[in-house]
């Protein structure tokens, strides 16, 4: 008994030295593995697509591992310059960016093309966490106001691209920091009020026609079943026809016969629900809940306000992906381009997420660093 306890201690220190948080890794790996099976089914049973997904998983895991080795202190040091650089990149995307699917998201630096908005998903929480953790918590109103402005800048720049999904994720990552930093409830109420007042302005001045159309479609998809409502109707049919037990892996007619749009990316949850049914959904949601719990556990046990706020924000933002994606494909939310985290096909967002998990692991394993 004793020796086994010692062995466990040894194992823990082994992973500790690698800066890997084992429970979190298990949760992530299970989701990634599920993603591989689903992408095979949703991608027309092509192995090539599975290989590509596996390759980006490899890259992402490596990236996560590398990031996990960096002491969290480093992020705090570099928060401001990196944030400024990120804003500059977002501006240059709007000025010189590449257009893809009707939106400018890509920046071509000659040797590499990348989406600055993706990396902002990490930079924004770091920046805000740094900013609000300079003072004792709970945050003061003046700090909150300034923090809001810091969040709003990248959010609006990304919304202008337009990339509603990413700007939503970035805004929430900042807001989560402010919330976790203990912004007073009265303030939160006021903010929610202001946000509601902002909706008409958003609708009239900031949203593009196709975004408005998405919202209208969301409100009544059956109005135009062959046009803009098609995606959401087909998605609901896929989910609903899955029933309790599902049609079985590779047996989903909605996905295999290609009635579902964006099957291996944004709508992969519909494929999953169709093929694995309510039981599968329960398992998947439990997995996500486990990852979120572990992330929050890491945050609560972090030793400094900065790392607590950063870990908490990264975890909750990860959950926003889950909520927005599942919400939209099951008809609760309008369609905004947010993938199902770790499961959807699509390298860029997964790499960002995994880098975020790398930061979480760093926070979880670099316990003894000093302010």
């Amino acid at each position, binding site marked *: 008994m004793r020796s086994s306890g010692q062995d466990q201690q040894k194992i823990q220190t082994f992973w500790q030295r690698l800066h890997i948080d084992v429970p979190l890794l298990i949760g992530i790996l299970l989701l990634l593995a599920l993603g591989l099976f689903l992408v095979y089914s949703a991608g027309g049973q092509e192995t090539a697509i599975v290989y590509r997904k596996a390759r980006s998983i490899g890259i992402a895991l490596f990236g996560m591992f590398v990031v996990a080795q960096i002491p969290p202190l480093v992020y705090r040091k570099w928060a401001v310059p990196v944030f400024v650089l990120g804003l500059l990149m977002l501006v240059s995307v709007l000025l010189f960016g590449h257009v893809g699917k009707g939106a400018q998201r890509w920046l071509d630096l000659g040797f590499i093309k990348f989406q600055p908005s993706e990396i902002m998903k990490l930079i924004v929480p770091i920046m805000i966490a740094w900013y609000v953790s300079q003072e004792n918590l709970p945050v003061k109103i003046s700090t909150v106001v300034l923090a809001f402005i810091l969040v709003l800048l990248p959010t609006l720049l990304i919304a202008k691209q337009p990339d509603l999904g990413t700007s939503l994720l970035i805004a929430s990552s900042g807001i989560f920091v402010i919330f976790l930093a*203990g912004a007073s409830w009265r303030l939160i109420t006021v903010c929610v009020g202001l946000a509601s007042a902002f909706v008409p302005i958003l609708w009239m001045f900031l949203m593009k026609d196709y975004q408005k159309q998405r919202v209208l479609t969301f409100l009544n998809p059956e109005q135009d079943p062959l046009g803009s409502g098609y995606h959401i109707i087909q998605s609901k049919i896929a989910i609903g026809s899955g029933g309790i037990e599902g049609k079985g892996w590779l047996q989903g007619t909605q996905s295999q016969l290609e009635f579902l749009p964006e099957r291996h990316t944004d709508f992969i949850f519909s494929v999953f629900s169709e093929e694995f049914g309510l039981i599968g959904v329960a398992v998947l949601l439990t997995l996500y809940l486990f990852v979120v719990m572990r992330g929050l556990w890491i945050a609560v046990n972090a030793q400094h306000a900065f790392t607590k706020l950063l870990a908490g924000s990264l975890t909750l933002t990860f959950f926003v992906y889950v909520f927005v994606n599942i919400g939209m494909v099951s008809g609760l939310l309008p369609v905004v381009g947010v993938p199902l985290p770790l499961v959807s096909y699509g390298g860029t967002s997964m790499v960002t997420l995994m880098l975020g998990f790398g930061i979480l692991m760093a926070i979880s394993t670099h316990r003894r660093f000093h302010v």
Partner: protein
Amino acid sequence: MSPRRIVIRNQSAEANLFARRAFIAFAGVVLVLLILFGNVYNLQVESFEKYQTRSNSNRIKILPVAPNRGLIYDRNGVLLADNKPVYSLEVIAEDVEDIKNSIVQVSKLLDITPERQSQFFKAMKRKRRFKPVELHSRLSDQQVALFSVNQHKFPGIFVNARLKRYYPFSDLTTHTLGYVARINRKDLNKLELEGKSENYAATYGVGKLGVERYYEDMLHGTIGHQEVEINNQGRVIRTLNYTPPVPGKDLTLTLDIELQMIAKRALSGKRGAVVAMNPRTGGILAMYSNPSYDGNLFVHGISSKNYKQLLDSKDLPLINRSVQGYPPASTVKPFLALTGLEENVVTPSTEINDPGWYQLEGLPNKYRDWKPWGHGKVNLTKAIEQSCNIYFYELAFKLGITKISNMMEKFGFGDYTGIDIHEESRAIMPSVAWKRARYNKPWYTGETLSVGIGQSFWTVTPLQLVQALTTLVNHGERKVPHLLKANSELIIESSGNAYHQITPTIYEPRAPLKLKQDKHWDVVLNAMHNTVQKFGATAYTPFKGSTYDASGKTGSAQVARLKQGEEYDAKTTSENQRDNAMFIAFAPYDNPEIVVAVAIENVAKGGGGTNAGPVARQIMDQYFGDRVITSQTHKAKAKAKQKTDSAIVTIPQEAD
């Protein structure tokens, strides 16, 4: 940003605050997950059936399968309407990368005209997604082979085989058989109205004319269904279920294609029609109208150029002349004579004097005989033999229009015969009431005289003539003229045995026409016999040397109205104002087997005897072949008649 400050931190208070907030966030996460799960539960459990149904209707499609159209045969089993595979070149634009270039390339390969290409591009604009569009409707075998070799170069372009109607005898059968052509909007509306549109979901064409149109329901068959699984592009992935279509019934007509050929040959270069019928059954043996046209042109969609040509032709090839009205002229004299006997205004021996003209008392108009110096003393038989107009002026005058039209209506003039094609005209049997309704004018006695020689407003169709003649030779027994002899249906038993069930068509006989004195039939028939058999009678020449004991009656109808004192001269009269030649005949005299009516428009020279008579002769020559039927002497016949008291009984019935 703000300058660095030294902050004295209360670590445990911060940790507590954070833990509280993190817990609230966690509670929020759990709540949101429950909402998501609840929503999915609602979709997958509460609304499961609804979405399952919708999922199935997404993926399962019922594809209609067109039944094979019934074939049509002539009385001897010669195939008149066939279904032949036709290869069309079709394009699914969504599968073609560079549509313009591909079409140009494939057109170059198969030699497709620019006209077709531009038609294709026009059709492309109003097509539905992933629906094929026809680039060429009839590829030759060579084109099919050439394309098959090069198919890999043209993704999205393919050859489609379809059964389409084919009429091997082309223009020989078009007026009677009709044709099948593509279902147009009007047909579709009609099918919908009749509740048949579902049965036609996969059908290419519908009968537009003649037998094809009349027996559409019998020929068409019942649609089959293929239940298939499709993907979002409507492409078939696999078949789940198959209900085969029931093919249409095959039809056997009473028509004899060889007689039809003779009719065509006899009418070549003329405008006119021939109808031959079996008087024992009413079965049409030949029905041909010249000029005709190729029904196959319509099957594939006639080009506007060809159609315009047919429409604009002065010879009106689209009209089926065998069911169009012509002035009957002297061909109706036997029927008028019979009316005179029936109404007792003449007896067989009543004689009149024919000086060559007839004049009504108190009127200046002189009605002329065709023979300027007249026929002298004329009784009924001679009047028919010689086609004496004066006799019939007198007769008509005595009868009056009402008695004439009443009797003629009993022979079927002025009404549909009920033949099994829809193109039939009623023609006109004038009467006082008719003229009042048509022109709002009273009837003039002079018009009665014209009716007496089959002119004035009176028109009859060649079909009506054979129908009336049938009633005459049958001594009043009336037959329904018809084309359909039998239909045959493929029956497949559950044991797998298949056989053709042949159902002969039964035509309900019509109430017979009874005369007060039955012997009057033979008086008239005998006169018609004389008309052909007696040297010097009007129809003697065309049947000279025939061996089947024919009888008949000629007719020459004035088309132009001659002014008083004017002479008709074919040479000086414009072509379309020249006389029509008419002829009716039956043979043999005893127990007739065939009745024939011929109409030829605007003949250059002569009348019915010289122009239409030979046509009837050729038909009968073909019909009887080498058979020699000798005439019984009138005496022997008269004796025989006394023994059996009714001729009707002696006419053997032949199943048809």
